[in-house]
């Protein structure tokens, strides 16, 4: 299979470079020191890649077996609209994650781990660039009134708080977030990209293979530092405790689960041939996979703490601790990390604002639930605006003013209005209007 390489028209390429200078100022440092950490690896380049020779027939849904679409204009407007929504949401996540990582990148204690994150950020920039390539190569005028340049500009002017998906509107509080985000949120990205690899819109499908290759490293850049930290924590390191890691998981996993969209939805994407799985099915696979990550982290911890145990003895000890709770051989259940209940701290989808506790317990009082959350979330996060917004909305749901569904859709977010300069920061607060759920779960960006 061969890969083609293209660049955006000059002014858009320059707009992305300008954005990079603002939000990824260490980019040059990465390139200057590339060989120190990645000797022999192909050097990073800001460009779009398309895989040639991929399947030419629609792979699922109503048009299965028919030729794939080469252009948006060949699609039904509704189908094209759906695709465009996903494309813009994808672009927003790529740029959004860089803004988040930049907040705490400098706080890493280990230079190698920091450099891995930096490379990952550069690759996210390329992913955003790839999505712009799709937005600008095609004519979307049957689907939207917004011009290509306007779509690009809208995405480049989004900030943490005005991105399309919730996970990208949450500030990072420490380098633990950089790493946990890679392990949990980039993992959702892997699912989305794998599903879009079969997209009935061929340019989308062709964009996925290279992005997926890069994503494989992003997951390792999350999981490997977590494993090392578990090992250090087992040796009583004073730096990162397993409790810190647990709280970061609690912060990010609910947002990750919501990135799959409403649990009742996704059927439209399958019918349109854009993705092979409905939301709930993909979300379930993801949840199981996170369980596997967490189990491995615990094994890493136990074996570091009790090196005298054999593999099977360590496995038995882990089983015992997970089943019985309590402690055994000097390790307590609390010292291990665990996957929170899938309805814990949710604000979108079926369990939106349902007040389900970390272990699945039910709460019927908002204040008691918020106190429960404060015990399970990182301190820095609780002091931030995302948690405040959530708490305010929860109280309104609890008082009967809003349903959970309505609250999920009306979480206020910063949205940009007007302005033509790609680095415009003009934003205002708008509340999203409720719209029917169950179709996809990606909130369409609106002007």
């Amino acid at each position: 299979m061969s890969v083609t390489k293209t660049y955006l028209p000059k002014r858009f390429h320059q707009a992305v470079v300008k954005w990079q200078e603002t939000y990824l100022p260490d980019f040059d440092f990465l390139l200057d020191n590339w060989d120190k950490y990645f000797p022999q690896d192909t050097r990073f380049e800001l460009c779009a890649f398309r895989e040639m020779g991929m399947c030419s027939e629609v792979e699922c849904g109503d048009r299965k077996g028919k030729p794939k679409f080469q252009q948006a204009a060949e699609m039904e407007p509704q189908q094209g609209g759906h695709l465009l929504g996903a494309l813009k949401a994808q672009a927003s996540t790529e740029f959004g994650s860089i803004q988040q990582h930049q907040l705490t990148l400098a706080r890493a204690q280990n230079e190698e781990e920091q450099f891995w994150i930096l490379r990952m950020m550069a690759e996210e920039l390329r992913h955003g660039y790839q999505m712009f390539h799709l937005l600008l190569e095609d004519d979307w005028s049957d689907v939207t009134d917004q011009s290509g340049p306007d779509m690009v500009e809208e995405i480049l002017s989004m900030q943490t708080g005005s991105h399309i998906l919730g996970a990208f509107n949450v500030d990072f509080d420490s380098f633990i977030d950089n790493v946990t985000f890679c392990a949990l949120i980039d993992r959702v990205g892997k699912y989305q990209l794998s599903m879009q690899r079969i997209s009935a819109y061929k340019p989308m499908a062709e964009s996925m293979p290279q992005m997926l290759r890069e994503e494989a490293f992003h997951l390792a850049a999350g999981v490997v530092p977590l494993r090392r930290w578990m090992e250090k924590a087992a040796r009583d390191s004073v730096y990162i405790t397993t409790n810190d890691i647990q709280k970061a998981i609690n912060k990010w996993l609910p947002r990750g689960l919501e990135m799959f969209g409403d649990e009742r939805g996704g059927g439209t994407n399958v019918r349109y041939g854009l993705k092979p799985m409905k939301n709930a099915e993909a979300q379930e696979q993801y949840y199981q996979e996170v369980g596997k990550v967490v189990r491995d982290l615990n094994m890493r911890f136990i074996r570091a703490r009790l090196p005298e145990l054999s593999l099977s003895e360590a496995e038995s000890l882990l089983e015992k601790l997970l089943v019985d709770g309590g402690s055994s051989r000097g390790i307590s259940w609390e010292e291990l990390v665990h996957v929170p209940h899938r309805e814990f701290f949710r604000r979108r989808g079926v369990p939106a604002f349902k007040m389900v506790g970390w272990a699945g317990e039910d709460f019927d009082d908002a204040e008691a639930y918020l106190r429960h959350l404060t015990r399970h979330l990182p301190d820095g996060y609780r002091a931030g605006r995302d948690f405040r917004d959530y708490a305010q909305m929860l109280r309104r749901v609890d008082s009967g003013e809003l349903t959970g569904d309505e609250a999920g859709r009306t979480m206020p977010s910063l949205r940009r209005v007007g302005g033509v300069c790609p680095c415009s920061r003009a934003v205002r607060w708008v509340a999203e209007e409720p719209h029917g759920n169950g179709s996809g779960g990606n909130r369409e960006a609106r002007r």
Partner: protein
Amino acid sequence: MTESETVVQIRQLEDTDIGGITALDEKIGGEYRPEVWERRITYYLRRDPEALVVAEADGKVVGFMLGEVRSGDFGLEEPTGWIEVMGVDPDLRGKAIGRRLAERMLDHFQSQGASSVRTLVDETMTEITGFFGSLGFEPAPLRSFVKNL
């Protein structure tokens, strides 16, 4: 196939296999080396993740093979596939797991434009020379030299 026979699935390696590969390596070699596999797998994942394969049975990693296509090594300018590290669960050897891992990796090498695949084997390890021999590998006139420092 009898009921007692395990179904072995060959698939692309994922970051979540680090623990499983570490455990398999320990079973083969008797030593627990998590740092080695964390580093090694991260290296391969950032280069060509599609080249990396594992065999899975009952949710456990029972085989793996790591390698990549490179050009320019040892004066070999054309793209060449290199099989570099592998292992199959000692309890499941002789069931074509190694062969299936290699077939998938070689298919990938071919799709990446490699016209040959190479590996380095210690001649005294007859199990491995036997394995590659059965797969159609022949001794190549490229000798490895070593000097202790």
